[in-house]
């Protein structure tokens, strides 16, 4: 029984560092599932699809920020977002939200791209500091990492606790960031500087790198990840094949472990034998013999199947088009595959080769993706 993918451990990274072609970790036995940009970053992804080499955003409260606000007013909280990735790959900040309580409030963001080690300024406004005491501001931002035509989106958040002291002063309190990582969030103390206790100038002395954490539920609510039906196809999903000759597809019961993180379906031979396909598609006659003429209408690389943003996606790569549930898809068009979808690569003879997608679920997660080929083929010896 082989181990399922959880999240890459240091031993997995050591295995990949020692042997770049390793498919399994020699120490813990986990599959080494590669990032879509593995050729650039050399990183591994876990079941959640996040590559720790490419995606490591930081939220930093800038030094020198002074924030004054009366109780009942609003507080502007300036900060910087930084790309702390160890590889030279950019990330894209595609959205910024904040909330004190209730619904998210979208904030203005006038830039998007962050290169390795770059940081850009942003700010949110807390509007509901109407009483002294402890207030929480939650900042959420959407991060995208892109490689060629693929994109993975994630949502991260950080919680900042504001302590407002003193209400009677007319000049209002000074909000000062004075400590970090206290309790379960980051604490910003707000002192009443008019009381003459000299408790601070209200300026941040050092940049504070706040903790950020993934918000998988918000990712689904915002439509960043997951399918419309609520299902999530994680990178740990296993792939099985029925009706295909054994030598024409990648081994059953494994996640997508190819170097580019996708399964290539097409007429070409398998990668192990020098070709470029992971699943070979050939048209066969009723007697099981190869239909050479019809097989030529299947492109060498007809379509790719991959997992992106917790969705099972199909992208047409060949010029010969294909049908998915009767809908024609042209080259470079893509679609999200769902349970029961029927892929017909032979557009003029759709019934000659039908691949049906079936999901096996565990709660709202798809544990196994099964491809059924109709009519089944036992191999043509080609």
């Amino acid at each position, binding site marked *: 029984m082989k181990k399922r993918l959880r999240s890459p451990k240091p031993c997995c990274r050591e295995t990949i560092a020692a042997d770049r072609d390793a498919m*399994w970790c*020699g120490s813990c036995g986990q599959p080494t599932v590669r990032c879509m940009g593995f050729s650039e970053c050399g990183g591994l992804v876990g079941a959640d699809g996040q590559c720790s080499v490419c995606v490591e955003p930081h939220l930093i409260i800038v030094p020198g920020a002074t924030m004054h606000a009366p109780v009942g007013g609003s507080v502007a909280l300036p900060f910087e977002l930084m790309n702390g990735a160890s590889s030279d790959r950019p990330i894209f900040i595609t959205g910024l939200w904040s909330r004190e309580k209730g619904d998210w409030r979208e904030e203005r963001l006038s830039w998007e791209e962050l290169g390795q080690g770059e940081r850009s300024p942003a700010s949110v406004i807390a509007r509901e500091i109407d009483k002294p005491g402890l207030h929480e501001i939650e900042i959420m931002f959407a991060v995208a990492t892109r490689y060629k035509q693929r994109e993975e989106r994630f949502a991260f958040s950080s919680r900042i606790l504001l302590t407002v002291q003193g209400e009677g002063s007319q000049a209002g309190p000074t909000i000062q960031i004075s400590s970090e990582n206290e309790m379960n969030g980051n604490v910003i103390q707000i002192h009443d500087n008019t009381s003459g206790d000299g408790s601070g100038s209200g300026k941040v002395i050092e940049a504070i790198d706040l903790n950020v954490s993934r918000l998988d539920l918000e990712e689904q609510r915002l439509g960043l990840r997951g399918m419309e039906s609520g299902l999530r196809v994680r990178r740990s999903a296993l792939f099985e094949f029925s009706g295909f000759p054994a030598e024409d597809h990648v081994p059953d019961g494994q996640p997508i472990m190819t170097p580019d993180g996708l399964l290539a379906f097409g007429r070409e031979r398998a990668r192990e034998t020098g070709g470029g396909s992971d699943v070979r598609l050939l048209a066969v006659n009723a007697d099981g013999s190869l239909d050479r003429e019809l097989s030529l209408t299947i492109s060498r690389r007809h379509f790719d199947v991959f997992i992106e943003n917790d969705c099972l996606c199909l992208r047409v790569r060949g010029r010969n088009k294909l049908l998915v549930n009767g809908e024609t898809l042209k080259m470079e068009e893509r679609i999200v595959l769902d349970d029961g979808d029927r892929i017909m690569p032979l557009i003029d003879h759709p019934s000659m080769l039908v691949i049906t997608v079936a999901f096996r679920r565990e709660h709202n997660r798809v544990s196994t993706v099964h491809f059924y080929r109709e009519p089944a083929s036992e191999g043509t010896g080609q």
Partner: protein
Amino acid sequence: MESNALVLSDPNVLAEYARESQFKTFFEKRFAAPPDLAALLFRDGALINAYKGTQFTVGGLWENIKGVIGGSHHYAIMLADLKPFQVKFPIRAISKDKVEIAGVATLELQLDPDNPGNILGLMRGISRQNPDEDSGEPSNVGRKALSVYDVQQRLEPQFEDRIFEHVIGRHNADEIRGNRGMQDQIQADMMTEAERIAGDIGLMVRNGSITFAMNDAERQEFEKARIEREQAAMDHQLELLKREVERQTESTEVKIQSNTDVAKLQRASEDELKHMVLESEVSFVDAREAAARRQEAEALEHQIVILGKERAAKFAMALEDEDHGFDVAKAKERTRAFTRDTELLETKHNIELNKLRTAAGIETKEAVSLSDIKIDDAQVSSKQNQTERWNEIANKNLEKLTDDELRKKDAESNRKIAEGRAEADARVAQMAAAAGMSAEQIGAITSSFSPEAAQAAIAQAQARAASGEKMTAIIRELTAESREHEHRMLETGMKGASGVAAGAGGKGKPAESGDAAGSATKVECTQCGKVLGAKDKFCTACGHRMRT
């Protein structure tokens, strides 16, 4: 010193020269020009400058002395009104539908306060000659001041045909009033024309507006509407009158009728009144009796009708009962006959059915038994075929395995035989070679097989060469070296064994690793054959668990 204000002589005057007589004085005098007037100072006919809200001083002893010595200059001051003013133009034009349109256009203008000197362009025909000092009569040469009317006369010819006729001629008379588009066009054209004509001679155009008088078409519409309103009012009055007359007619009729009845009663005598009462009583009694009789007759008629209907119904029912009994008897008779026929037919049918069942039962049994036999045969043959195929495959596999094993065993035994044979041959060759040798020669040959034997041979040689004591010491030394060598061999073997044990147990390398331990750091995956590190728990190629 008191200042004298310089003012214009008339509100309609825009600009005029100040009287020179004012400035002829021996003593010094001071004049003030208010800020809403521009004072243009001329010396010897040339414009010096224009001033707003400034003071001038003239005369004085020193000035007179300077004049006597150096000669005097001629000074003149022109005053110009800088406040906005309005100029009105009459509008006369013919509309598209040939109706005369009249109105007033108003243009609001102002002398340019920044460049009041430009007003000199408007001053054509204005004379600087002052009224006669002696008589006070005005000079007869030219005009004395620039007035609003002069500006009006200068602009008016440009507006009439070029603007008013041109624009108004494109609209019907009834479309002109309230037509903002047309008004905007006229206003813009007026301002453009005025700016073009007088812009560079000191006039600024501030605004323009137009007001139209009522034209014939509008007047007719107005009159028509007025007449219609009057007619509507008269109709309304007529309606009111009609309703009044109707009300009066109705009330008159009632009044006349009641008056007639009253007059009739008044005229009747007492006997006539009694007769009238008696008549009315008699007629009342007659009417009551007639009503009672009619009611009795109606009740009788009703009873007759009911009795007739009852009797007819009873007769019909009796008739139906008779018919029903007859029909029932006939039906029973038919039913009995039908029952008999049915029983007969059923009996025949049962007989036929039994016959058929018997025949069909025999055929079915035969078919079933035949079919069972065939199925059994097919199953048996299928199983036989399958078993044969399996046996064939198993035999092939077995044969293949057996052949492989046999081949392996043959190869191994052949290799062992060859090795043994080679060893035996070597021994035989050695023995054959040693057959003719002396003991020393044999010892020398033997020493080439083993370093220890060689050492022993050397020691023997040395021992032979040395004395007895030396020989004894050398032999003791060699014995000690031999023991030390044995210890080293044992230690090396133990280290190798502990290294293998450490690798098998998943621990790190032993503290002291020798060459023998280094050779055990690689293992081969039993499933895919990939060479892996000895401490790997899983195969990195196929994920196979290497050890627990």
